[in-house]
């Protein structure tokens, strides 16, 4: 069964103009989805519909088997579907790393002994050993996002939603977060829904969704979408360098295949040399 089911969802902040227009998609267990789009395309609003922070004006969202409009189950839903936000600073609540990781567990009423174990496990899993007593303001951006992820993984979630979680980070922090997310998805089978405008980041996903002016204009594996550069450009997205080069090479009569990454392009080109 799908972990996330979005059916004909529309959302509007002011009750007049819809920022999300009749969007439908599903995400299976262990799947990695990238929701891409230009700033203001409605992708972050859509993300907030997935865990009931926003409720759709029309249509339904069912996450981890719970419908987001049911106030009885919304807290359970949110524990099963964690969310990492864009601003690393504004989502850490507690004064130390360990306390912050425990915050969600405290909310869920997990008993102390189990809580301690789970916090320790999350610290290890996210490579935060030695930072347990560190205060959030003494962490780098990448570390803060990993703490946020640790707080979510401690709850043993089924789904993690990342809302532009690496857009404020430096390159080191960005690859840090991506490594962690990869492991959580590929090794632990957590469904990942990653909101991003960076197609290089999206290239690694199983499926890529393209949002444009509130509408879902594409839903396919990245390799397939990279063959339709016009669709991506229309959505205000910038093609990864490897994809762009491959596209131009095709125009020159070469066949570089349909690479989604630098490695794939290099491999394809080496056949020619």
């Amino acid at each position: 069964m799908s972990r996330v089911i979005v059916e004909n969802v529309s959302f509007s902040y002011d009750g007049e103009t819809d920022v999300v227009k009749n969007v439908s998609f599903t995400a299976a267990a262990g799947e990695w989805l990238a929701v891409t789009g230009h700033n203001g395309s409605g992708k972050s609003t859509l993300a907030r519909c997935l865990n009931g922070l926003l409720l759709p004006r029309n249509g339904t969202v069912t996450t981890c088997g719970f419908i987001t409009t049911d106030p009885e189950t919304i807290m359970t839903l949110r524990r099963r579907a964690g969310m990492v936000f864009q601003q690393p600073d504004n989502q850490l609540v507690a004064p130390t790393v360990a306390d912050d990781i425990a915050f969600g567990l405290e909310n869920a009423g997990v008993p102390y002994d189990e809580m301690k174990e789970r916090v320790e496990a999350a610290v290890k899993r996210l490579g935060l050993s030695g930072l347990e007593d560190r205060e959030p303001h003494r962490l780098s951006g990448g570390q803060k996002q990993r703490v946020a992820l640790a707080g979510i993984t401690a709850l043993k979630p089924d789904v993690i939603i990342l809302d532009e979680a690496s857009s404020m980070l430096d390159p080191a922090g960005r690859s840090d977060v991506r490594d962690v997310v990869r492991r959580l998805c590929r090794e632990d089978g957590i469904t990942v829904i990653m909101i991003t405008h960076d197609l290089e980041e999206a290239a690694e996903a199983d499926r890529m969704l393209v949002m444009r002016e509130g509408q879902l204009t594409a839903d396919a594996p990245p390799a397939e979408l990279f063959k339709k550069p016009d669709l991506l450009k229309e959505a205000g997205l910038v093609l990864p360098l490897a994809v762009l080069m491959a596209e131009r090479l095709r125009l020159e009569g070469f066949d570089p295949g349909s690479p989604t990454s630098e490695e794939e392009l290099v491999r394809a080109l080496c056949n020619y040399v």
Partner: protein
Amino acid sequence: MLEHVIIGQYVPGKSFVHSLDPRAKLIAVIIFMIFLFVSRDPLVLGTAAALTVAAFLSAGIPFRFFWKGIRVILLIVVFTFLLHLFMTRDGTVLVSLGWLTIYSGGVIEGSLIATRLFLLIVLATMLTLTTTPVDLTDGMERLMHPLNRFRVPVHELALTMSIALRFIPTLLTETEKILKAQTARGATFSSGSIWKRLNAFIPVLVPLFVQSFQRAEELAEAMEARGYSGGEGRTKFRQLAWRNRDTIVLFVFAGFGVWSVLSVV
């Protein structure tokens, strides 16, 4: 200058004082505060001084760091001393210069108040220097827990305080950054009339408010996403462990309190 003020700062360490339960330290300081002002007996004050010195020595705070930090606050002590010196009209006249008359009572009263104040400031500073703000908040929450019955929102108060503590450093960095940005845009904060100076801070305060509100909104959203729904049914990650040493320290301070009262009776 402000970066030298150490009241409210925490210095990491593993000393005896560091290792005490925050509840024990809080109660000890409260006992000290109350009973220090009960007795005028020099022996009692001497004991109080001895307790303070003992606390300082066993906390392992570098003396120079401590002295630098407490200097500014000593001005208050000196001011209090002078106030009592000049205002008290008891005992024999020691000095008389025109309108200024100093009585022996003034010297005694001034020294007494100044000593008490000094000891209290030192001991209270020791509390914050050796206890993380988190532990302090936690200790207070536990101590105030019985008030829950009187509908005092103890959990909410503690959470608010802990979030405030979490964001003070962020806010300070933010303030400094905006100050620098506006300085780079030609702002001056230290010249002109008071009105002008206050006005100069508007370009600093407005962005700070705007950002704090935005921060608060985002934080509330994040807390909601992390399943926060009030104090009910919540468990606690932070556990406090009361040990024998805490009981001993409390007995020592309680003993001081009793003696202080006995010396008056």
